[in-house]
């Protein structure tokens, strides 16, 4: 067996008398607890090109960010698309998700939306059609409407912030839910504020190749 090296053994060495939290923050004497998780909406303006969605989705799964929903769609400018992500993370986790997202080359900008942002989700809820009147009454309650009716089923469309969709689905359960589909949250910043800045030199110039 090899003899190793010389020097004072671990138990004879001084102790630095301090510690960090598992996430790497120095612990103050008046102890800071691990930060709580927070639900936030991140909006990313990206180049509208093949593979962008795969890169964003891959990033989130690979880095184990807690993702609740992800939506993608074109914008008014044909070369841009907007991706809206809802994540639940600690404060450092949110920062890290935003930074990693910004690092992807086809990503133009990323914003964490404020609480006053407009956010909506759409759900289609297909229930047993035994009580059509009661179903439309509940749909009314959630500003929804029946969009498909068959002998057996009624499909209702509901739009609203995510908690409202959750509540609606719970209410519709009494009729017997057959299927649900939800789009995930789409959102824009409130007022004149730009959601995610898109004025990148060269990019908005339509003559650029």
């Amino acid at each position, binding site marked *: *067996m*090899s*003899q*190793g*090296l*010389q*020097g*004072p*053994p*671990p138990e004879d*060495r*001084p*102790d*630095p*008398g*301090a*510690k*960090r*939290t*598992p*996430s*790497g*923050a*120095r*612990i103050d004497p008046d102890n800071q607890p691990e930060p709580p998780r927070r639900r936030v909406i991140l909006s990313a303006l990206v*180049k509208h090109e*093949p*593979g962008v969605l*795969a*890169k964003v989705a*891959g990033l989130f799964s*690979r880095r184990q960010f807690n993702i609740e929903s992800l939506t993608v769609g074109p914008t008014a400018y044909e070369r841009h698309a907007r991706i809206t992500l809802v994540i639940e993370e600690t404060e*450092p986790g949110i*920062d*890290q998700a935003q*930074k*990693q997202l*910004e*690092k*992807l*080359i*086809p*990503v*133009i900008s990323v914003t964490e939306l404020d609480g006053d942002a407009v956010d909506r989700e759409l759900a289609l809820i297909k229930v047993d059609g035994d009580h059509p009147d009661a179903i439309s009454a509940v749909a009314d309650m959630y500003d929804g409407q029946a969009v498909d009716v068959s002998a057996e089923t009624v499909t209702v469309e509901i739009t609203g912030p995510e908690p409202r969709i959750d509540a609606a689905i719970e209410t519709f359960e009494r009729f017997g839910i057959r299927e649900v589909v939800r789009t995930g949250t789409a959102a824009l910043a409130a007022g004149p504020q730009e959601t995610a800045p898109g004025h*990148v*030199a*060269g*990019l908005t110039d339509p003559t650029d*190749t």
Partner: protein
Amino acid sequence: MTTPDVESPPPSDEEQPTQPTTVDSGAAAVIAALEQAGVTTVFGVQGGAIMPVYDALYDSPIRHVTMAHEQGAAHAADAYGIVTGEPGICLATSGPGATNLITGIADANMDSDPMVALTGQVPTGMVGNDAFQETDTIGITSPITKSNYFADDETTVGDVVGEAFELARSGRPGPTVVDLPKDITNAETDRHPRQPRLPDTYRPASRADSEVVSAAAHALERAEKPVILSGGGVIKGEASDELRAFAIDHEIPVVTTMPGTGSFPEDHELAMEMAGMHGTGYANMAITHCDYLLAIGTRFDDRLTGGIETFAPAAELAHIDIDPAEISKNITADYPLLGDAATVLEQLDNELSGIPHADEWREQCQRWKAEYPMDYQWDPDGPLKPQYVVEQFDELTPSDTIVTTGVGQHQMWAVQYWTYTQPRTWVSSHGLGTMGYGLPAAIGAKIAAPDREVVCFDGDGSFLMTAQGLAVAVREQLDITIAVLNNAAVGMVRQWQDAFFEGRHSASQYPWIPAFDKLAESFGAQGFAVERHDEVESTIEAAISTDGPTVIDFHIDPDENVYPMVPSGGDNGKFALSEDQL
């Protein structure tokens, strides 16, 4: 020892062309883009889907180094990138060619090495049909590249290659991939690629926020136990001179990460050398007990930090990095300094009025050096010690010698017992820990720096993984020395088995390996075998004075272990000096 008949490389059947490429096809545009970017050498292996590109290469002044395996092409390109600071280029065909590159691309990604991989692809019309030799190269390489590109237009394919090159070398460097469908490279076009330029969404920071700089500087002035942690970013950012001046002017001890090896001269009094799992005792003491840590260009890998809770636990952290996503990723920065290493060091320097009042700390650091010397025990007549071999090589070669390594114990001895004094002399696989990196890396390094000595320290296990590269080294008559520190085992695994698995040597003993000196000779390289300390010096001298590649099979003490050692997730300050302390 035998002297094989080594013929000089076969003269190429054609003179190397000197005229730049005229663009008449997508493939020619690819080559023209490389020429325009200043590329002089590429590494690769032929194959169906990349043939048009190779055909265009035939008329180009760019030198192509045919490798024996695409993994070797990627590692050679990676090492070329480390030594020159400019992206190394590798080429492979679709399917298995591209998948053979993957290890090398992932390695470059973990170590932020500049590299461009050009992969052939099936024609665009066949993509998605599981055509012959089709793999989703873009999908596979997305998580292991800085970015990647599917070239779907022959008129812009050259621009895309230029952008991939520029992106690979800029900011925090990294590998990029351009996937080249055969119909695009075959298509006619006369459009010459534009000058390489960065994607418009990529704007690396240069100067750090001046308020944070001055706060960081004032905290440093107040510090009683300051340490600089110099990472690979210092070398990649060409900031080694600035770092040296900064540390010496302000008398701050310097600890390095493994990729930061060579960023600060290890023969300087302020050098504490490498910290982390197999770092020196004094580096780990310094980093554990400092009250201020100026970390530059490091991502706080777990092999460096050990357990996060005990990493520099009392230190205020100022972190200079060009990648915002690295700041506060693993260790929370008190002073986030986003910018270019050399620029931010200069900003800090301008804010500092003197040296921190840390005389007692500086003395303490020197005392730790004396208390925890790296002196290994050896007996001149006893089993051959690998540390001795490394030291002898260091003695007998010039100070700008480039060292490459495989992964394992030998790699650690190579970093511990060689005194690195210059940047870009240490070429190793850090983040990915890729066995087999050493020989192809030596090929790439030698081609990048033909006038410098190149020594590859390899393990027997590592060497076996890419030994086919010897054929390339012989063909190209590369004057490199491969020192196999042969313990007839995957020694690092054996060491861990002894420490953590009750000595159960599951699949770690390699009594079946070939005689490496003979293996070398069969390739046409010169082979040597050494078993005794008193043969080491003369054999090294003989190997170095031989033209062309040599392999020295050093039969080292199979029981030798690497110390100090901090077990995974352990406390750096409690490093073990021998097995009973683990």
